[in-house]
């Protein structure tokens, strides 16, 4: 048990995490490719045409995974940030910083695909639907986190300030979602739900799950690549960075 603990803390140092991340990245890219190819194949060739929405519904194969990932990544980011605050480890803050842009990208993709789905289905690019509105606010939360970290020069302070913001945000996300839903029902907005295909065929669900896995692996791969760059930027003055083979070459 104590051995276990030690090895975990060993990898919590940027010095030992840097090469570990380097070894893991190709595997996650491979998984992204595998899940992505199978997922795309299922979404275009296996999943049948929807009898109500025609071929337009195929957008949900990226819309729903992007929306899931944007929420999931925010929680993961806040968890790393909270760990950094509680345990005072340097790596946690870097992980949170590395996840944020990918999370923002996912939030943007869910908005973009939501708009492109909405135009043929609702007849409008944007509808103040509870989900779309919450996704928009989630996107703003990501932008706020990135902007706050970018505005603070001292990396440690940026980490901690970002951590508090992320934790406040993660408490607020369910409240925001609930309030937006409440607001939406009060105003009798659109009653169609994006994911509520009337007869959700199992193949559709499979396609969505596979694409979600692909997005997940992609996020890990990109976040790990980015965290490696952040580690180098922040630890540029240390001996171990100067001794890296990449630097010597």
């Amino acid at each position, binding site marked *: 048990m104590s051995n276990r603990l030690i090895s975990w803390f060993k990898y919590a140092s940027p010095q030992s995490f840097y090469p570990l991340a380097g070894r893991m990245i190709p595997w996650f890219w491979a998984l992204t490719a595998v899940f992505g190819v199978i997922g795309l194949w299922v979404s275009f060739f296996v999943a049948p045409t929807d009898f109500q929405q025609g071929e337009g519904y195929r*957008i949900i194969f*990226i819309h729903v995974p*992007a929306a899931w990932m944007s929420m999931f990544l925010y929680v993961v980011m806040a968890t790393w940030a909270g760990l950094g605050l509680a345990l005072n480890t340097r790596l946690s803050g870097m992980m949170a910083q590395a996840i944020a842009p990918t999370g923002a990208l996912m939030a943007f993709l869910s908005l973009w695909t939501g708009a492109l*789905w909405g135009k043929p289905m609702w007849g409008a690019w944007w509808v103040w639907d509870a989900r779309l509105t919450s996704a928009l606010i989630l996107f703003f939360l990501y932008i706020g986190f990135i902007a706050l970290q970018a505005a603070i020069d001292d990396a440690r302070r940026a980490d901690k300030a970002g951590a508090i913001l992320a934790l406040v945000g993660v408490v607020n996300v369910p409240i925001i979602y609930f309030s937006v839903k409440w607001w939406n029902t009060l105003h009798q907005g659109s009653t169609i739900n994006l994911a509520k295909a009337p007869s959700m065929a199992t193949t559709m669900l499979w396609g969505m799950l596979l694409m979600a896995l692909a997005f997940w692996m992609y996020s890990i791969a*990109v976040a790990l*690549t980015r965290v490696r760059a952040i580690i180098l930027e922040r630890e*540029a003055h240390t001996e171990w960075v100067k001794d*890296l083979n*990449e630097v010597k070459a």
Partner: protein
Amino acid sequence: MNWGSPAEFFAMGGYALYVWGSFGVCAVLMILEPILVRKRQSSILRILRRERQAEILENP
């Protein structure tokens, strides 16, 4: 199989703009982001290498 011909596949039952607009932007961004991150990594590596060279030149 849903599609009789490639043309049918690209037409997406009349939803081509929306379907390919979504998948296209998604693909472009998901290719662009790793490239940008890789660039960030290589630019910091370049700076580190230069600093190391400078150090070697200063104290041989």
